[in-house]
């Protein structure tokens, strides 16, 4: 087996461009994919036009609310590009310079103020989008919904907060500013207390009964309004999220991204190398000569898988060392990294051997390897709940048949303690090694006939 391994390494050495491509291309792709997944789109660029007159403030119950700082709050979440007019905003969106444009119309504050009157209006903000790309359109819609939800929540909380202050004033009494004049409000609590103090001085009769009625009303109102204050606060955000993790443990997103990058690199290097080098034996017509008792089918398959494992392990470890520059990794788990990569590479190598055994040409098998591995890798990244349950079940079955997903799980588990179950992933890979090994042997026997 060592002579065949030496021969394959000599052949690889003779094709430096091919060897370089085999290593550099998947590593580059893997790093790009990994970071694209982990970093997200960042702050989207949004053209921002604020037509609301300066100094305009939301007024509730005759009192001005503190400034909400709309621009500052919005521009915390998106990268704002200030524009002077609607035309400029449209141009920014059309040219793709901005993902969307947000226009706060001049009557926005008036419309908000009308919410507390008998003729409430509908406050509107205007959003301009360029939906030339369905993914971008979805992203913009999600961002707008999120921003609008946050803005509505903020306004509701402000109004509820101010409303709560007035209710508290009504219950407990205090000072209230009307047109620059301080007005003292007695409050229901004090009203009841005063009346209770006066009550013994009154003779029994209709007057005392009337006083008792007023005292009961003031007490009842005070108690109910006491309850209304927190109720009003709850009304601003009636539902709060209480998250409980029932299944799965998620590692940090950066670690998951590195796991994806490593699994992709390992998949392409191992699968292509094993499938290609096995197909090369057929393409060079050397296979019949080898199989005349010089090398058994099992030895040939083992040699090819060993070649893939050595190359895959080397490239993936180099890539992890390189990624260490961007994201700190736990070197104390190095042994687990090696174990996960070795078993994953063996499973991917066995899959590559099955593909290579069924093909006669290196080019055909390389294309086949890409056609099989790339969609499976992408499907393996589809999270549950993002597609219909039936489709997700189909994806789960399909991805379980190929070593990419368990390899990703094993590598992620090896990189971080918060990852999936390493043992289960390794067992899954071991089953795939056996299955693909058997398939490769059958294919080699079936397709080696002269």
């Amino acid at each position, binding site marked *: 087996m060592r*002579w*065949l391994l*030496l*021969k394959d390494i*000599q*052949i690889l050495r*003779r*094709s430096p461009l091919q060897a370089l491509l085999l290593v550099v291309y998947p590593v580059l792709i893997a790093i790009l994919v990994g970071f694209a997944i982990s970093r997200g789109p960042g702050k989207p660029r949004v053209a921002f036009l604020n037509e609301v007159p300066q100094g305009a403030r939301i007024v509730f119950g005759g009192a001005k609310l503190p400034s909400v700082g709309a621009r500052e709050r919005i521009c915390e979440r998106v990268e704002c590009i200030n524009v002077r007019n609607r035309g400029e905003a449209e141009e920014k969106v059309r040219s793709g310079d901005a993902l969307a444009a947000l226009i706060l119309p001049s009557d926005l504050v008036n419309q908000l103020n009308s919410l507390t009157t008998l003729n409430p209006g509908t406050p509107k903000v205007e959003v301009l989008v360029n939906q030339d790309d369905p993914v971008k359109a979805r992203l913009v819609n999600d961002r707008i919904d999120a921003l609008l939800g946050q803005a509505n929540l903020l306004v509701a909380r402000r109004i509820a907060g101010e409303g709560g202050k007035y209710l508290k004033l009504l219950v407990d009494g205090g000072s209230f500013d009307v047109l620059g004049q301080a007005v003292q409000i007695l409050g229901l609590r004090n009203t009841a207390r005063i009346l209770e103090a006066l009550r013994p001085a009154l003779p029994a009769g209709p007057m005392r009964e009337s006083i008792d009625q007023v005292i009961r009303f003031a007490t009842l109102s005070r108690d109910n309004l006491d309850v209304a204050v927190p109720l009003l606060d709850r009304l601003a955000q009636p539902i709060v999220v209480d998250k409980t993790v029932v299944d799965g443990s998620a590692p940090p997103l950066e670690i998951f991204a590195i796991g994806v990058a490593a699994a992709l690199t390992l998949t392409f290097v191992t699968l292509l190398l094993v499938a290609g080098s096995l197909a090369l034996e057929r393409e*060079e*017509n*050397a296979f*019949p*000569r*080898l*199989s*005349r*008792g*010089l*090398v058994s089918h099992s030895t040939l398959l083992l040699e090819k898988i060993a070649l893939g494992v050595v190359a895959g392990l080397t490239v993936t470890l180099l890539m992890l060392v390189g990624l260490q520059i961007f994201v700190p990794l736990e070197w104390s788990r190095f042994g687990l990294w090696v174990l996960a990569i070795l078993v994953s590479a063996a499973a991917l190598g066995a899959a590559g051997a099955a593909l290579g055994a069924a093909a006669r040409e290196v080019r055909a098998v390389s294309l086949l390897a890409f056609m099989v591995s790339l969609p499976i890798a992408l499907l393996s990244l589809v999270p549950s709940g993002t597609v219909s349950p039936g489709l997700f079940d189909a994806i789960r079955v399909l991805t379980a048949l190929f070593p990419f997903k368990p390899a990703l799980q094993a590598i992620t588990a090896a990189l971080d303690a918060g990852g999936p179950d390493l043992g289960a992933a390794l067992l899954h890979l071991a089953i795939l090694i056996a299955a693909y090994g058997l398939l490769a042997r059958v294919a080699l026997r079936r397709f080696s*006939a*002269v």
Partner: protein
Amino acid sequence: MEGTTAAAVEARGLVKRFGEREALRGIDFEARAGELMAVIGPNGAGKTTLLSILAGVAAADAGEVHLPSGEVGWVPQQAALYRRLTVEENLLLFARLEGLDDPHGSVEEMLELAGLRGRRAEIVARLSGGNQQRVNIAIGLLARPVALLLDEPSVGLDPRQRARLWEFVGALAERGTTVIFSTHDIQEAERYGKRLLVLADGEALFDGSAEQLREVVRSEAPEAASRDFETAFVAFLHHRGH
């Protein structure tokens, strides 16, 4: 199915099917030690299939093959070597895989024998088709086989290389190696084959010397028999419906 007889290759009732098609239909023959036997016939006659079964690359569906004790060398029709390796690396790889006691010594011997000593460090892909075929044959001879199976060995060789090849193969046969070769070149078969095995549609139509075949044709088509051997051979096939 395989056994040994004293320095001879023997086949009895060989049958090979590819689906519905019978590529070999009960082939019988034997080749003695040191004999040079040519397997000839039209395309699809079963020549390559027969040699592949003798080489152990393909299995017969029925019949028996007896091979001499010792190595049987096989030189396939298409060069079976690694084009990205050098001539020497190819020979050394197969010498090691053969488990030869002195792989480097055997490589030197084959380089000398094939006249490739000066081109030992050249990448095989850069060699001419003829030189690639010489490497191909040299690999088949590495283990000093007692029987040598050559499938269309002279394809792609120029006349000078062909002459050199047959000189070399003739020398092997003189030393006692049984050589069975297939060819499309009827003149070549007449010239170098001490015995001819004629196959057509998987059947053995004739087994004997070139002169014996000409005698058969003489009784069937006297005009053709008096002309060149290829014409006589075509008449022989035509008379049997091929």
